[in-house]
């Protein structure tokens, strides 16, 4: 098939993204389980951060290669020939890249729409209430459902059902709200959206489950730590709140996660993680910038261009 300059660039970008993503994804899939096990031996907020980075790495790495390597190489070295033939292989891989992105974007949009609907209904069914000792309003929903949640990204809302509000003592409720507020501080809902919007580490084959489950587990533990902040008193209150809310659920099921969390809270009063704002992000940006500078050399760009020519053919 012959394509003009810009469609060809789009085709090459999608194909490169897919191939780099696949290569990085296979590497990440190999270390996912050991990384999740290693997470048990470090502080939960660090473990959650590592697993999140691994989950996003294939897509972030592939995007970096496309933007920092392929685009400059193509724009500087590709002659502006009106049309050029693009091989079947390149087109097929570009189509796979398109499909991969379509699936993840659809998943992200579905999650955003579902969350919006859920929050809208919570607000219709509830009333904003200022609980004693709280600085912000909490939406209390007139329901006996075991609901205690933080919903939304831009303007997150704390939502509790009347059933939960009356089942918990004042100190248990305060501990549970601190836990949800810790998710707010950690921007966990935004991270959830990033995970949903990012293609699976092995396209069309999943492979992200271990990392996502691990991230959720350690994010919960990190929120526990922030809620407790080293206080034995709050630790016991939060453990009691977890058990009390769990008792409100109807069916029997998996028991490990709850037992682990409660045991952890009773064993120690975990200290709150020290804030390290922007440190990790600054490091990543620095590494990316150094890599980009190293790659943007004429010889490197020429080699990339030759590789892209092979891909197109």
């Amino acid at each position: 098939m012959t394509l003009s300059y810009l469609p060809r660039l789009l085709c090459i970008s999608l194909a490169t993204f897919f191939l780099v993503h696949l290569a990085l994804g296979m590497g990440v899939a190999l270390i996912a389980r050991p990384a999740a096990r290693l997470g048990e031996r470090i502080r939960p907020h660090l473990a959650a951060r590592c697993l999140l980075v691994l989950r996003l790495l294939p897509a972030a790495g592939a995007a970096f290669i496309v933007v920092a390597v392929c685009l400059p190489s193509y724009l500087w070295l590709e002659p502006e020939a009106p049309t050029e033939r693009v091989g079947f292989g390149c087109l097929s891989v570009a189509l796979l890249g398109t499909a991969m992105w379509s699936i993840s974007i659809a998943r992200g949009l579905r999650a955003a729409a579902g969350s919006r609907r859920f929050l809208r209904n919570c607000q219709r069914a509830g009333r904003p209430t200022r609980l004693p000792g709280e600085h912000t309003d909490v939406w209390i929903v007139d329901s006996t459902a075991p609901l205690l949640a933080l919903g939304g990204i831009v303007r997150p809302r704390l939502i509790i059902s009347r059933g939960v509000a009356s089942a918990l003592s004042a100190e248990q409720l305060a501990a549970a709200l601190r836990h949800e507020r810790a998710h707010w501080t950690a921007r966990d809902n935004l991270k959830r959206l990033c995970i949903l919007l990012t293609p699976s580490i092995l396209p069309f084959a999943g492979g992200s489950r271990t990392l996502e489950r691990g991230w959720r587990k350690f994010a919960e533990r990190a929120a526990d730590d922030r809620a407790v902040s080293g206080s034995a008193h709050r630790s016991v209150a939060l453990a009691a709140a977890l058990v009390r809310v769990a008792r409100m659920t109807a069916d029997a099921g998996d028991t490990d996660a709850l037992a682990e969390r409660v045991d952890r809270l009773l064993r120690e009063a975990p200290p709150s993680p020290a804030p390290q704002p922007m440190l990790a992000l600054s490091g990543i940006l620095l590494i990316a910038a150094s890599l980009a500078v190293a790659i943007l050399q004429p010889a490197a760009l020429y080699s990339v261009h030759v590789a892209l020519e092979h891909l197109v053919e």
Partner: protein
Amino acid sequence: MQDALGHLEFRVMEVLWAHGESNVHDVVQRLGRPLAYTTVMTTLDRLFKKDLLVRRKSERAFLYAPRRTRQEWERKRAGDFVAGFLASPQASGDLLISSLVDAVGQYDTALLDELEKKIRTKRRELGRRGKI
């Protein structure tokens, strides 16, 4: 909210919320579109069976009135949605929601009894140390 009721059912509810207790003839007049008397009567009967209306007999006709105000009805609908959503198997797994319930999942009573026992023991221990 309208999707919980059929279009005509919702219009009938709107008429009753706006005008209060009415008989079939009044509702037909206020709907603002030509509908058979029997169609509206059937719709009112269906809404009564759905427990959305109350009715009483006045002479030979029934008078219908909404059981809840529109605000109460919308709140109840939203509450039902939230409860139904939480009971569904996928719950908040694929949503942008951090939920304590999602975090703890669903558990058997024996385990919860065991955990509560541990919590009581810890409380006593902390109490003895004077921390609680």
